[in-house]
């Protein structure tokens, strides 16, 4: 079961949180911020947050491009399309379904991201959360060590999703994630 944790953060004299149902970015009074934050977060999330703050603690990206795992290509694409449709309806439902329909692991996150990155451009457009949810449902490494973050480039209203797994950000093509302040964490791990 996937669980989400609200990290709500004070930045540029305002409080910022992600609404757990709509997934939209909210600006709140800093005095009220505590009431929006999860009381406890799992250790795996706090460790991943340290990596977000200090990206040089992560493993450097590999130079050699990964071959996509063609064996499971259709499963990955099916999941990706499924989450694309659900996300259009509701953010909360897409996270809920990702938790409920987690399938047997078919490979590490790096390979699944690589497969998704080989999809046509128009499919991938603006689909960072869908990519991450797809990985979260099919990846062995995510289930073991992964945290999916949703964050915002503050004070802009621009949002992004990415994954941190132990010492790695497994999406080779994502250079954007460092611009986003993590505001929500989603993981299989409990406090």
């Amino acid at each position: 079961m996937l669980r989400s944790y609200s990290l709500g953060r004070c930045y540029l004299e305002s409080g910022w949180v992600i609404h757990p149902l709509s997934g939209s970015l909210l600006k709140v009074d800093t005095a009220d911020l505590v009431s929006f934050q999860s009381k406890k977060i799992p250790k795996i999330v706090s460790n991943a947050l340290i990596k977000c703050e200090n990206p040089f603690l992560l493993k450097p990206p590999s130079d050699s491009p990964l071959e996509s795992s063609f064996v499971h290509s259709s499963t990955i694409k099916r999941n990706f399309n499924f989450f694309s449709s659900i996300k259009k309806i509701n953010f909360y439902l897409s996270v809920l379904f990702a938790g409920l329909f987690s399938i047997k692991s078919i490979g590490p996150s790096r390979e699944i991201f690589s497969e998704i990155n080989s999809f046509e451009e128009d499919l991938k457009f603006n689909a960072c959360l869908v990519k991450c949810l797809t990985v979260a449902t099919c990846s062995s490494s995510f289930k073991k060590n992964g945290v999916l973050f949703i964050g915002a480039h503050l004070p802009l209203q621009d949002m992004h999703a990415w994954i941190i797994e132990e010492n790695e950000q497994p999406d080779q093509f994502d250079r954007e994630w460092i611009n986003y302040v993590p505001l929500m964490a989603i993981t299989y791990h409990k406090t």
Partner: protein
Amino acid sequence: MLIKNSSYHTKYYDLKKKVYINPTKERWANFKIDSTSLDTHITNSQAYSQRPDSYVNVIDNILPIPARSTWKRHGDLLTEFEQKILGTSNSLGIEDLIRYLNKLKNIISGRVAVELSGGLDTAIIIGIAKHLGVKIKLIGGISDRYEFRTERFVQELIAKDFDDVTFIPESSALPFSNLSNTPFHAIPNKSSLFHYVHSVTADWAQENEIKYILNGMGFDSLLIDKVQKKSTRLIFDKINLDDPWPNDYVFKQKSTSYINIISNNYIRKIIITMRALEPNDNQKKWARKIFSEYIPNELSKYRYKASFAANYAEGLSNNKDEIMEICDRAFNHCKIAKIEPKIMKKLIKGLEEFDQKSEFEFITRLSFANWIHAFLK
């Protein structure tokens, strides 16, 4: 006939009178400026070029002639005299670059500073200068924004190795700051919208008697674009890789030269030759590997790059009133509808909603209004 500019700054040639003219506010205020002038500025901005063979004159008959260049004129047609073709058939390597820079080091007299941005390009220049034992001072804008944490880390890491480092807080020199005091300039250029950070740097340079400030301006194209075997493409052309505006209008006035290191033909040739047949390389993997000896691990092994979008948005938001005043004054002078304040306000709204077309239109039109404002004030 030949039109030659052997100076180190842009000169302005009157095609009708066939002489160079000295641009002055008074002369400029008398030129006819209409919607065609703005349209030609938009065309030039789309082409990203100030080469006289492709530049469309914004002011009738006045043509910018880039520094250190010579042009042949046949009627209305201009062609570059002895255009350097950068063939990549010779085998040149990093040792040739270092050897050449070592020679150059012995010729340069006067204090040298290098910009320290925390990014790869300036780090390469700083690393090689340090390797060659060149005594340099460092200057750079530093940001406390979340997204700039990796740049900041690298800036502080590099700074540890130098005695003389000056950081300009980003919040004190945002884009679009102090536009009312933009220096007079002969032709519109979007760099005028970012003049303030250059002004702060130039003041520092003057105070510290710095003769040269080296920047990594043209590296983006040189280290990213695909290099063909015989690279004659204009994308690696010196003029296209350079933006003379900051040097011509800000640094020169403070007795400092703002130097784009790759405007040196031989440096450019060596790097292009080294990159021969390399594909497009958006993350500059090739450069990170080749120059790994000269740069911190954080730049050779990682490829983080912060976005300037929030910095840009803050600059726009903080300076909206001044921007509107500039547009108002320019509009009252030339009555060009496209720079009317209410139209510009609409473009700002588009910009705030991340519309890229609005961004280009806004920057181009505002740089035009700012140009008019600079000679009216």
